[in-house]
Structure formats: structure tokens, C-alpha cells
């Protein structure tokens, strides 16, 4: 994203929330954050929960964003916005959160008709779905698809969004238009989408996955050879003599503050403290259901291990077998190819024109 594009992005974002721009200088922008924006990017959740609990008027936060590292404003505390800036990432997330689902109607050019003969025109319902396909192994690549499903006369098109964005659209249905019925349910449309995605994936070059599997196989071979030899030479090899005795040859004394001879007691130790099994809830979710800060902290906090449960002697090196299994799990986690398809956003579009959508994905 170029700096200019960034500035336009920020201005559009702020305008969408009707933010009050205090100063708009070629190099920077000073803005009073509207409540919704503040909550998303202001980094003060506790302030907001306090204000709401106490029913007090909030003090809006004022921020200055700069766009050129060489032209930072003087005498003003400004934040440079760039792709790696934490604040920009928050703004991105905020835009994604508030730009997820839309319903838009095409504003067709006015049809010149005498009012006597004026009759209504049909709009075709479309489901526009933008997805990200991530190809993941030890590396990763993304592919964005802008799909559209005609809900009236079922068919799928690619590059739906790029054509739709060129149209004049309105959030409410214009006069003298009516919408055609939807012959596909949402689930059915989603199936069409899934099929189009699957076909796209099918057409992709799959060598990345083959290579990843080759790499995995190589690594597993090395591992197999290594641990097989370890096991074969058990008893004679220094490596396997380790489990029980190696600790004696271990580093400096500070490593062994424990008393010798507690080996048996070790087994009966209480299990390590683990965070509550309850499903983790985000602060936002907790807050929206009317939860209190203290409860949230209590549920989500990690308890400090009581002194009497701290046990420095409880230490056992993995056996070669355990080590081998752990390593195999790590390798699979790292290399095994998989594909994730996630929704970016989706919308219902009622269109008058039938733009020339591509039936096949473009430039792939």
C-alpha cells in the first residue's frame, strides 16, 4: 500500500464513521475519534467499560496520523502510519469488522419515460462472496477470490466484486424497481461457492504440496534412521543411558536444588496447574454480555503456582521414543500441506445490469 493510498484509506475509513477531522494537513491528519473507532483502535477497553458503567460522557481521544516518515509534523505528537504499524493493523481489523456484510441495490440510469407509462423494472439478486484461500505448509501463499452467485438464475461468476464496484449502488431500493425472487437458499449458494473454490484449487499448481510432502518424507527418513540406531544401540550407547542416570552428570549444582532420594515421591505430585477448562472468551464478548472486568480477569487469569507446588526436582528427560514422537508431530505440524478457505466479506447485491462477469478465474 503506497502512502497516498494509505491516506485515502484512512480518510475514507474516518468518513464512514463521520469522524471530526480537526486538521487536514498535506503531511498529517488530526482527528477526534468517534466512539466506535475509539473502541476498535483506542486501546482503552477498561476506560470504555468504566464510562459505560458510570454513565459518564466520554472524552474523545484525539490522534494525529502522519504518512511520510521524512515529513513528520513538528511540535505535534504524531503516529506514522505504515503497513507494519500496530495502529494501522487495528484500523484494518476495524474496517473488516464493520465491513463484513452489505446489502446493495444498483442505481440504474433513469429511464426516460413519460410518467404515465412508467412501470417498474426488475433487479436480479446476487450473493457476492469474497474469500481468501491460504495454501499452507512450512510456507504459505494466499489467493483471493471474488465470487458471485446469481440467486435467481443459479450460476457462479468470478471477479464479481471488481465489476460490481464500478456500478452506482445504494443501500436502499430505488423507486420504480422491484427485486426478483431468490430461487437458491443461502446454503445452496454456499455450496455453489464451495464448488467454485474447489475447482479453482483443482486448477492450481500443486507442486508446492508435493514438494512439502517430499520435504516431510526426507525429514522423517532422517529421523527414522537416527532413532532406529539409537534404539538398536540401546544399553551400549551413551545417548540412551540417559533417562535415569544422565542427570547426575548434568551441569552446575544450581540445577539440582532438590534433595536426593525423592524419586518415588515424584509420582504423586499434583498435576501442573492448568488454566480453567472453560472456553476462552474474548474481552469484547465478555463485555457485550454485560460481564464485569473483575470477573473477566478472574476467569481468564493464570493462577500463580503456590510455593508448595513448585518442584525443582521433578524433571525427567524424555525417552528416545517420546522424543521421536514429539519430533514427528513437530514435522507434520510444520510441513503437512493444507488449505484454508476463509470469508473476507459477503453481500447481497440486487443488480439491474448484467455485467460481463468472467466465468473462469482471471489471471491465475
Amino acid at each position, binding site marked *: 500500500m503506497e502512502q497516498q493510498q494509505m491516506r485515502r484509506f484512512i480518510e475514507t475509513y474516518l468518513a464512514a464513521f463521520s469522524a471530526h477531522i480537526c486538521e487536514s494537513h498535506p503531511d498529517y491528519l488530526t482527528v477526534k475519534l468517534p466512539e466506535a473507532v475509539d473502541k476498535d483502535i483506542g486501546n482503552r477497553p477498561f476506560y470504555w467499560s468504566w464510562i459505560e458503567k458510570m454513565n459518564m460522557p466520554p472524552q474523545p481521544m484525539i490522534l494525529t496520523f502522519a504518512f511520510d516518515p521524512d515529513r513528520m509534523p513538528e511540535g505535534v505528537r504524531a503516529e506514522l502510519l505504515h503497513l507494519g504499524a500496530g495502529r494501522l493493523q487495528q484500523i484494518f481489523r476495524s474496517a*473488516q469488522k464493520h465491513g463484513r456484510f452489505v446489502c446493495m441495490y444498483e442505481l440504474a440510469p433513469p429511464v426516460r419515460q413519460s410518467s404515465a407509462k412508467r412501470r417498474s423494472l426488475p433487479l436480479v439478486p446476487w450473493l457476492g462472496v469474497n474469500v481468501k484461500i491460504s495454501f499452507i505448509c512450512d510456507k*504459505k501463499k*494466499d489467493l483471493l477470490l471474488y465470487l458471485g452467485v446469481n440467486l435467481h438464475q443459479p450460476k457462479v461468476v468470478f471477479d464479481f466484486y471488481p465489476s460490481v464496484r464500478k456500478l452506482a449502488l445504494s*443501500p436502499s431500493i430505488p423507486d420504480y424497481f422491484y427485486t426478483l425472487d431468490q430461487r437458491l437458499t443461502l446454503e445452496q449458494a454456499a455450496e455453489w461457492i464451495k464448488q467454485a473454490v474447489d475447482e479453482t484449487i483443482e486448477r492450481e499448481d500443486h507442486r508446492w504440496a508435493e514438494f512439502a510432502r517430499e520435504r516431510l518424507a526426507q525429514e522423517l527418513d532422517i529421523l527414522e*534412521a537416527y532413532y532406529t540406531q539409537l534404539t538398536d544401540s540401546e544399553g551400549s550407547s551413551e545417548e540412551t543411558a540417559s533417562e535415569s542416570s544422565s542427570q547426575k552428570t548434568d551441569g552446575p549444582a544450581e540445577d539440582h536444588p532438590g534433595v536426593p532420594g525423592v524419586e518415588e515421591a515424584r509420582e504423586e505430585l499434583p498435576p501442573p496447574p492448568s488454566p480453567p477448562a472453560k472456553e476462552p472468551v474474548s474481552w469484547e464478548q465478555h463485555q457485550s454480555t454485560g460481564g464485569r472486568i473483575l470477573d473477566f480477569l478472574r476467569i481468564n487469569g493464570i493462577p500463580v503456582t503456590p510455593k508448595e507446588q513448585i518442584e525443582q526436582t521433578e524433571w525427567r528427560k524424555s525417552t528416545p521414543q517420546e522424543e521421536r514422537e514429539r519430533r514427528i508431530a513437530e514435522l507434520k505440524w510444520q510441513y503437512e500441506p493444507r488449505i*484454508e478457505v476463509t470469508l473476507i466479506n459477503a453481500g447481497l447485491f440486487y443488480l439491474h445490469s448484467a455485467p460481463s462477469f468472467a466465468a473462469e478465474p482471471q489471471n491465475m
Partner: protein
Amino acid sequence: MTNIPVAFDRTWLPALQDLMQNDGPWHKWELFQLALEAEEALAVKEFDQLQALKYLPHVKPYPHQISTAEKVLNEMRGRAILADEVGLGKTIEAGLIMKEYMVRGLAKKILILVPASLVIQWTKELNQKFGIPAVAQKKEYMWRQYDVVVGSIDTAKRDPHRRHVLDIEYDMLVIDEAHKLKNKRTRNYQFAKEIKKKYCLLLTATPIQNEMDELYNLINLLRPGHLGPTRAFATNYVEGKRQAKNNEQLKTEIGKVMIRNRRSDGGIEFTERQVKSIPIELSKEEWALYQGVTDFVRQTYRADVGGINALALITLQREVCSSREAAFMTLYNMHQRTAEGSKEQAAILELVEMIKRIGTHSKAAKTVELLKQIDDKAIIFTEYRATQNYLQKYLGEHGITSVPFRGGFKRSKKDWMTELFQNRAQVLVATEAGGEGINLQFCNQVINYDLPWNPMRIEQRIGRVHRLGQKRDVHIYNLSTIGTIEEHILHLLYEKIDLFEMVIGELDEIVDRLGLLSSLEQNIIDIIMESGSEKEMALKLDNIGQAINSVRHSALADKAKKLS
């Protein structure tokens, strides 16, 4: 090929259905468009292309750092030993790789284990340079609460921390100063091995300090079995403890898991060093004191007088070369310890009287002159607190602003002093150079007010400013008072062994490899303290210079043969 599992997200269907049923509330079209634009900016278009740089406007990596990052990502599959020589920026390389995996969404939970003294430094650098929200681990809950945690291995391996760390699946593990893990029998090593990790970086400037096994052990942390089982490794590659065989093959194998950039590789531009000796003529009174102290030290050193130990005498001899203030405290303490009315006490009193008679301070005066001439930021190194205090006072009297720097300062105070020096003061007067991670590259003038007898310390002093990131030539001024031991030392270091011209880290390697460290300084001390005459001392120092030189040449020759 259709057998790649595809996870198709359908969780959004009910939400959209609800909205359709109630006809809203819908989101704004502008934000819908921005959401897509954001996603397009964040999407990773290629498997192999480095993405991190566009997220890092504040980092200007060197070509070798970028190629290292690319190699780790594309060829080494995210598990590597980064073994650049000192000062080439391993931290930057690690930061780049970390950022890349984060940007690609492949790493979220990251653990960075470093020596306790470097925890804050790492945390700061990751946040400031790389925009990585790393936190320094202080409390038990932090292991789980934060995604990117910097901690010390000595804390992490102990209960209750250990249970948390071993329980978490880390997308990435980074270990700095990894040569400390060379011994597989230590708990640190075993602990590192037990940590569940996807990607792993081990950072060390000295992957092999003594034995081939050390490197084997490090590689086994990353990719167990990469060099074959222990015994196969021994038969295939090890000739002697330090001697490899099948060198080419071993090199290839090691090259798959380790990257070692060297200064000599070229492409890495270091600025020049300009070394200058500043001779100083002592005043008559100063010379008398120097002579008096030197005579006293020699006589007493041999006489083995009760109450005065050899160490104090050595110190005194060094101090008198630095400043009279430094010598004064030691003389005072000696006076307290010697027997009342003894010959030595009388001699000491006389020396103190001599100090009182001195009205000039030739060295300090010369320093002020030099500083005015430099007219830029400068670091003055001295070995002694007393000299440091005196100098600060003296500089202040001559209108030169200065800040102190000492080893005893807490980390935060060191940072504060560095900042003051950068923004407010002309001079930093420092008694130590070894402050790990203190970067003073913005300054390129170093004044050695006195010379340590241990060459390693001089090397460390210069290394503070002459490192990657220094954009200007580095000027080094060595103050040496004519006719004193200092002059001899300087002659040894400067003329004989070319110390100031050595590349950074070279002396380090020589001394380190041959275990010379303890003996080098001791040799110098012995020569100075035990020589009967100036001439004898000069001759002996000359010999030691030749010895070091021959060691250096053989080290260079060996290096050519050594594995890369």
C-alpha cells in the same frame, strides 16, 4: 492432486441469514470496500518472496542479512543456526525471519530465550525496530498471556515456569548465545530440546569453540539426525577433537542448517579506523611523581613488605599512568595498612606530598585541547573511577559537557546515559566497555585516556563504536605519556601486534582459540613488574609481541582450512 485437506469456513452463514431475515442492520459499502482493500494489502502473493520488509520502514537491512533471511525461509525451512561473526547483526536477521513468519500468519506464539542481561534489550529491539509486540517475561502468567515472550533460559527451565513452557506449542523458538547449549548433558540443552517448536533459530557467533561435538549437538537440537547418529558422525567426520575429515561433505551438510557470514566475505562494508597516538610531555612535578611511584612499586614488589600486597602495587603502577587522583586513593589505603613509622609509610607519605605539589595536569589539558579540535561527540575511556570523576570535573570547568558511564550502572541507567550522551552531552566518560548491547555507533571518536594492559579490553572499547551501523570512519586517539610504561604498552599493541588495525573479533578469535586470555595479561604484568630496567622491559614486551604475531598468522592460516 486432490488429497490436500481443505477447510472451508461456513461459520458466517447463520450471521448472514439473520441479517437477511431482519433486513439489516447492514454494514456500510465504503467499509466493505476498505475491508477488501486491507485484505489485499495483507495477502501473501508468493510462497518464496520476502514480505517483511514492507512492514519495516525503520529497518534497513544489509544485503547479507536479507539473503540470510531468504535462505532460512526458503531453503532451511525455518530451522537454522545463525552463526555470523560478531557485529554482523544476527539479531536483525532473527527479527526479519520472525517478522516474516508473523506476517505470513505462520507464527503467532513465539518464545525467545536469551541471557538474563539481554532480555530488556531484545524486547526493546523487537518492539522498536520490528514492531513485534514482545514482552519481557517477569511473572509466571506471562508465558501464557502473551504471544511473543522474551525470557531467560535459566528462569524458563525452572519450575513453575518450566511446566508452562513445555506445555505450550511454540510456532517459533529463538535462542540467543546458543553456544551455551553446546553440551548435551546440561539441563539447558535438554530443556531446549523438550520445547515443542515448529520453527527454530539458534544464534551464536562461535558455533565451535573447542570440539566438533558442540556443533553436532547444536544441529541435533534443530534437526536430530541431520548429521547421522552420534557414532556415524564420529566415524564419518571426526578426525580429532578439533579436526574434521571429509571436509567438503561435512561442509555441505552443515551448510543446510547453518549460515555463517564473515567480515572477510566482502559486501559488508566497515568504515576505516584512523589510529593516532597523542604523545604527552609530563611536567617536572608530574614526572617526579611517576618516577617516585615506579621506583617505590619496583622496590616494594620485590621486598614483599607486610601490609602491601602485590595486587595493590600493580594497581598503583597502572593508576599513576592514568592520573594522580587514581593513584592517590591507593596510596592512601596503603598508608592505612602499613605499619606506623615504617620505611614504606614514610615513602608513601612522601609520594602523597608530591601529589600535593603538582599544579598542572598535562594529560587532562591535552584532552581538552583534543576535544576542542575534534569538535564532535567523543567517548573517553579510562580504567579508573577516580580518573573518571576528575575528568568530568575538569571538562566541566572547561565548558565541555559530559556524562559518566560505569559497569555498575543498572541497565536503565546505562540506557539513560547513552541517551543523554546522544542528545545532550559532547563527551561520554566511561570506565567500562563491555556493556553488552549498548550501541554507540552515532559516535566515531574514541579517546583512550589510559591503556588497559589487557588487549581484549581495548578491543571491546573500540568495538562499541566500530561496528555495523557506524557510518563514518572511526578515529582512535591513544594518549601516551612520553617515557612511561604506557608508552611501552602502546608500542607493543600498536606497532608490534597491530591491534588497532585488526578487524573486530580477530583478537577475540586468537585469544579464544588458544586459551591465551589468562596468560596474556599476566605476562605483561610480570614483565612490567619484574624487569630490572627499562631496556629489559622493552625487550621482553617485544618478544611477547612477536609471539602474538606468530599465533595470529597460524590462526589466519588455520582459518582458511577450517570449516565455514
